[in-house]
């Protein structure tokens, strides 16, 4: 068996993948073939068996839910000193770093398969832990309002949380209340609405996970399109007696992007044709999918990019006043901080980006509507945004890793030493290489963003020369953003 498998490139397959306008043999950065795939489930048949088992999802959720339960108790009654409390260290140092450095770039939304927050709601809704229970679940099963079936609610909820990040990340009880609130919210939504409505339309984490999972090197897709096309009974969409319809309300047969795929593997369990695959692929593939792009996702990209810059300034920068404002030491200062953050991510970043796109459109003489070009090119902000967060996350994990073994042995900060690691000294590692890692990440993000911008421009305008001219101003913007992050994180 060949390790590198050529994807099936029949017309239907290409249409489903939605990459219209991308030339055959296109390569990312000139050397990674866009259509390269490596089917893990074909290479390792045992993996398919594991993914088909209903116990896999249950046990993964149970493990994270167990840790979460202890952490939540620690948040409420453990030490208020953040770096000695399991909840704060687990969420804001370990989970965040693992999410941005490993899970999202390599495994897409795998976190959604492990996340403990919706577990209780889902178990109640299904009235079952593992096996599918016949009959109606414990839910009204309503559909989410059509007008809100987008990323706008998530954008606003995320922004609301971002405004309080200064106290969220340092105060144990605030973090605990927030997470408990999310668990309760997920339960209420599960009892009213169908399937994983909370995860898809309301989870503040899910929004950026969805957008950045377009960069991931892993995907779940159908294997052979004609098998799905000819299979009249779409089990993955309607469910079977043994397994549920896609909890994320996706149609796995035509799914072209990772954005709303929660990696729950339910489609593996419903598909009687065994036609689902987990595949490795080049990063960023979904950004080229010319299907279902929208302003809601564009704004998510602006919010994440702007928030990364502001957090870098507040948390890593030398400006004590900014830190005080974010930490709510005075009402006036906090209002200045919160309004600046909201204005920056919702208005300033999109307006500046819009100006650069408008210039590019003028320069190229393109006749496509401005909003279409603006929306499409906004997806080129995903690589630089994600790599900026990766650079930011290096500055979280490398100096603070020692808190993790400490709280494992002493989760409540009560002086325990369960595993003999409570006395691990605070010992930052890699401080000399950290700036190099950060600059390398930012430069990779810049190169990737430029490449994606050009490919999207070509896809939108259908002409190499016009695409090159239209890309010039956005490239200047991207270079400026890279310079800003380099200055904030390293300079």
């Amino acid at each position, binding site marked *: 068996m060949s390790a590198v498998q050529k994807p099936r490139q029949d017309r239907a397959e290409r249409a489903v993948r939605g990459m219209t306008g991308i030339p055959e043999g296109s390569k990312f950065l000139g050397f990674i073939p866009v259509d390269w795939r490596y089917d893990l489930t074909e290479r390792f048949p045992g993996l398919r068996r594991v993914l088909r088992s209903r116990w896999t999802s249950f046990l993964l959720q149970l493990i994270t839910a167990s840790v979460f339960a202890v952490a939540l108790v620690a948040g409420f009654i453990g030490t208020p000193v953040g770096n000695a409390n399991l909840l704060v260290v687990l969420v804001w140092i370990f989970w965040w770093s693992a999410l941005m450095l490993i899970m999202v770039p390599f495994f897409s939304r795998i976190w959604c398969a492990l996340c403990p927050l919706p577990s209780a709601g889902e178990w109640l809704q299904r009235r079952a832990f593992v096996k599918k229970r016949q009959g109606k679940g414990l839910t009204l099963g309503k559909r989410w309002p059509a007008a809100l079936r987008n990323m706008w609610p998530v954008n606003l909820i995320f922004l609301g949380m971002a405004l309080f990040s200064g106290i969220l990340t340092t105060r144990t009880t605030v973090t605990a209340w927030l997470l408990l609130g999310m668990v309760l919210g997920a339960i209420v939504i599960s009892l009213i609405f169908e399937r994983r409505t909370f995860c898809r339309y309301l989870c503040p984490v899910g929004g950026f996970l969805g957008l950045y999972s377009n960069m991931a090197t892993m995907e779940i897709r159908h294997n052979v399109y004609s098998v799905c096309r000819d299979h009249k009974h779409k089990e993955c969409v309607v469910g079977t007696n043994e397994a549920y319809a896609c909890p994320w309300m996706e149609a796995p047969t035509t799914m072209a992007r990772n954005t709303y795929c929660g990696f729950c593997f339910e489609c593996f369990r419903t598909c009687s044709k065994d036609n689902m695959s987990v595949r490795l692929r080049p990063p960023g593939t979904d950004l080229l999918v010319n299907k279902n792009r929208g302003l809601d996702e564009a704004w998510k990209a602006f919010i994440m990019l702007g928030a990364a810059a502001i957090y870098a300034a507040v948390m890593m920068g030398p400006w004590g006043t900014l830190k005080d404002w974010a930490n709510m030491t005075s009402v006036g200062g906090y209002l200045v901080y919160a309004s600046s953050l909201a204005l920056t991510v919702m208005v300033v970043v999109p307006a500046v980006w819009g100006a650069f796109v408008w210039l590019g459109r003028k320069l190229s003489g393109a006749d496509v509507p401005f909003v279409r070009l603006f929306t499409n090119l906004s997806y080129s902000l995903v690589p630089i945004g994600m790599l900026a967060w990766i650079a930011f996350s290096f500055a979280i994990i490398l100096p603070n890793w020692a808190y993790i073994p400490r709280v494992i042995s002493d989760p409540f900060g009560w*002086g325990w030493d369960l595993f003999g690691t409570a006395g691990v000294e605070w010992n930052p590692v890699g401080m000399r290489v950290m700036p190099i890692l950060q600059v390398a990440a930012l430069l990779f993000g810049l190169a990737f963003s430029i490449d994606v911008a050009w490919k999207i421009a070509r896809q939108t305008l259908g002409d190499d020369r016009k695409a090159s001219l239209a890309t010039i101003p956005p490239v200047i913007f991207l270079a400026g953003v890279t310079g800003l992050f380099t200055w904030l994180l390293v300079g």
Partner: protein
Amino acid sequence: MRWQEIVAGILVAACLIGLPAAALAYQNHRETRVVTLEMMQWEYRPAEIRVKKGEQLRLQLIAKDVVHGFQVDGIANVEVRPGKPEEVIIWAQDAGVYRFRCSMFCGLGHAAMVGQIVVEE
């Protein structure tokens, strides 16, 4: 399969309720020294607390007159209001003398409101 759901239910109960409960039970059975620390203008009573290394110190903080603070650098910083006692748990991990002081301005003698925890080998 009904038995699978029963097993799963037992696992869920054991993990989500059992683990936190076990943690709290473990804490309650540890060797803990409970000390009531009264805070008033401008002194702590007692001003010196002696514990053995490895011992856990559960300090019950009571402000008798105005708002006071209890700060041990890098270990604890708690604001205590009259009529609203607070509790701090300190693990005496290393031998030494640890100074604590009032961190809320409580009047003219505020600066003199200090005390110490002595951790003996």
